[in-house]
């Protein structure tokens, strides 16, 4: 009991009221390999944070720790004032508040587009089916493909599938959205349609953490950019600062390679 009291105390002390995600010294190992080395970062409500960095730098691992798809071994992660522990109830609560969009879409191939979207609202949020379906159609309108509702994911293009995946996450009415390289598996001509949806979402005031290689998107939409390398946060700043006057050598090297 005492440890719980302690964490509550810390959370009240540390977290300002509009802090959505607070990470403190998060460590993560895969076997002997340390993927995250004391990552500390705070994401405020309605903030759009883009995470950049070379592959293998721990970007994806970090955001996957935030909804506990990966279990961190050191430090604390707090989402909307709830600490991530092994307590199953906390995990389920956080997962229903944090939406995630994957690189490979991960739509459920045996369900129609609309069923993909309504499954979790019906079973997790206990929404009546008609309400969930109305919400699903509304979200499909929002991502621009209401006419595909009765099709199966395999019948859609990559861009359409990713938009369905975004709608599926939004159907849970999450407070935070995590994007794990959402456009990396797409053909070039489909990237824009997905980025447009994400931009729209950011303008609507959604709290977002986006792992991506789309520099244009980062420059235009991000409130803040976090640059990671070898499991550490190297540099944090606004897009102007990051793209025009980076301080760290490693950041400069990365930018010179990519731009």
């Amino acid at each position, binding site marked *: 009991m005492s440890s719980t009291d302690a964490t509550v105390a810390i959370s009240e002390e540390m977290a300002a009221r509009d802090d959505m995600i607070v990470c403190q010294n998060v460590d993560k190992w895969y076997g002997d390999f340390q993927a995250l080395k004391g990552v500390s970062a705070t994401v405020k409500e309605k903030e759009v944070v883009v995470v950049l960095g070379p592959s293998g730098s721990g970007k994806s691992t970090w955001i996957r720790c935030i*909804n506990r*798809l990966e279990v961190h071994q050191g430090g604390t992660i707090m989402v909307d004032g709830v600490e991530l522990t092994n307590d199953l109830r906390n995990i*389920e*609560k956080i*997962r*229903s508040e*944090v*939406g*995630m969009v*994957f690189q*490979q879409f*991960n*739509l*459920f*191939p*045996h369900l129609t587009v609309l069923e993909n979207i309504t*499954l*979790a609202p019906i*079973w*997790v949020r*206990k929404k009546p089916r008609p309400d969930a379906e109305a919400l699903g159609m509304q979200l499909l309108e929002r991502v621009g493909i209401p006419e595909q509702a009765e*099709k199966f994911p*395999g*019948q859609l*293009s990559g*861009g*359409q599938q990713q938009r369905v*995946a975004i709608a*599926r*996450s939004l159907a*849970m009415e999450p407070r935070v959205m995590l994007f794990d390289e959402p456009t990396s598996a797409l*053909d070039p*001509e*489909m990237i824009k*349609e997905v980025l447009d949806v994400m931009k729209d979402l950011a303008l609507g005031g959604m709290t977002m953490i986006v792992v991506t290689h789309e520099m244009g998107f980062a420059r235009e939409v991000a409130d803040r950019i976090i640059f990671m390398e070898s499991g550490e946060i190297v540099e944090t700043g606004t897009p102007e600062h990051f793209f025009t006057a980076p301080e760290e050598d490693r950041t400069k090297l990365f930018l010179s390679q990519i731009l």
Partner: protein
Amino acid sequence: MTDITTSEPEVSDQPALPPEEPSLPIGEWTRKNLFSSPGNAILTVVFSVLVLAAFRVLVNFMFENPERDWVSIKFNMRLLFAHAYPVSQFSRVWASLGMVVGLGALSLALWPGGGVKSIKRISTSLMSAGGIIALGTLMVNGALSRDDAGEVLFTEDFEAIRDSWASSLGGRGSWFLLAALLFGAGLALWVKFGDQRRSVFVPTVRLLYVTVGLLIASLWVVKYGHYGVRGDGTFVIKPDSLVAFSTRMPLTVLFVLAGLIYLVGVRLRGVDAVKIAVTAGWALSPFIAFWVILRDPDIDYTHVFNTDLPMFVAFAVFGGALLYALSSPKIGELGRLIAMAMVGVAGFTFVSAFFGWISMLQKARLSFVALAVFALMANNFTRDLRTRRNFVIAWVVAIGVMHYFITIMNSASTLELRSDTIVGGFVFTIFAAVFGLMFSFPLGVLLALARTSTLPIFRLLATWFIEFVRGVPFITVLFFFDIMLPLFLPEGMEAPGMAATVLGLVLFSAAYLAENVRGGLQSVRRGQFEAADALGLTTPQRTMFIVLPQSLRVSIPPLVGQAIATYKETSLFAIIGVFDFLRIANSVIPNQSTPVNFVGHKLEGLLFISLVYWLGTFTMSKYSQSLEKKLGVGDR
């Protein structure tokens, strides 16, 4: 996909059809497909000769062969299908069959599906059937000479005396007529539809109905012969007569009924309540059939109504209420105490039986044990009202199935004979296969889930069970359940031999099914688990809605393979003394000397049961193919 710049392929648009390939004239087709190169030509000739030779051996094995006596099959048809089931009670078997046929017709109407066949395909099938029959008739040796009693005449060298081949042909006019009819029908279709024969389709279901209809109609016209033993022990042998009225009439009624039910079903299409009722009907049908066929005509209904039903209702209602209370989220430690108390009560009922303090039906004791087990699980179902309700429903279903089986098995007598002697022949094969599969499928899925579970106890138990059962020959399992299991049962409970051994079949088949399902589980990609987790689905929800549907879909081919194997494995019951289909053909008929002498006529029976087994497996495999197509296995 001609326009590669299109970013969103329009799937809904009707794609332009490819130009129709003109069908080649027969001569050209033959040259292109059979004689395209010298090697190909040699293969064609060699294999044609081999196939024809094998076919000739087969028809001469079956017909006009002094060693064959097909009367052994015709005469024993009832023995083969129903063994010693009393003739006076046959209406029950027909009623059960009627239930299944009705459900089948209704399902086909409610869930339209199944394939279609083009006119071209139908027409070529008819023509080749006609051709094969004509060819076979031509290949049969000359007719055997028989004396007035029908016995084959032999020369002094024990060679059968035959008419010449040419003069026998005249006596086979009916076969040639059949061949001509089939060929003619095929040709008529071919000509009538002309170029449309490839674009006009007939549903397979309708085709099947017409075929079966023609076969049943032939019972009223063609003199297949009337053979068999009557209820009073007298027997009938009338080779030049129609099939027994008591056979052709029920078959005709069933056939007409199936058609009518189908028509009604078509009108009910889209009514969800009917679909649910039919699904429930399928789930219950084996139990109803079991009840209808096996129940004692003098069953003590007062006992059923005064004891069995009230006991079930009491356990369902009071047990359900108790479990509902125990699954309340507020009950806390008290719930655990009550659950422990229930374990105590269950234990006490057995102790009291030992000392003879309280007399109680064994069924009540076992129900208390079941209640204690459910009470212990109750705190896992506190999530919300729906979960609690489902938990209570699960209890009522479980206690219902349990009481049903104990009541059935312990009724004083079943038709005044023990059930394991009364159920035999093909009826037994169906019973064992249906009950075996019905229980081994859920058990197999549970075992597979347990084996892949993260909970070590489940994983360990499931792994050991599967590895042990798969390491033991099936016949050993059968002997074990036949001989050992009755020894382990508590006093006052008896398991008819058949039930115990079918339990063995269930466990054996479940172990194999579990491995097939596990293969399917492993094929579900990690991303699917992650997506389900990221949406906040619980582990049971993830399993039910995401993982199992996908894994079962990819494991359809091996699962059907295992179902077919289980169906055929029922023939091993012959070894432990059940009078099943195989045993009757293999040992019973070849030893019959009265009222007709069939001694040594084993091959006829084996050939016949092979055909019946094959019809069953062929149906299953066709069904699995259409299921695969419907669910799109292979193209995700």
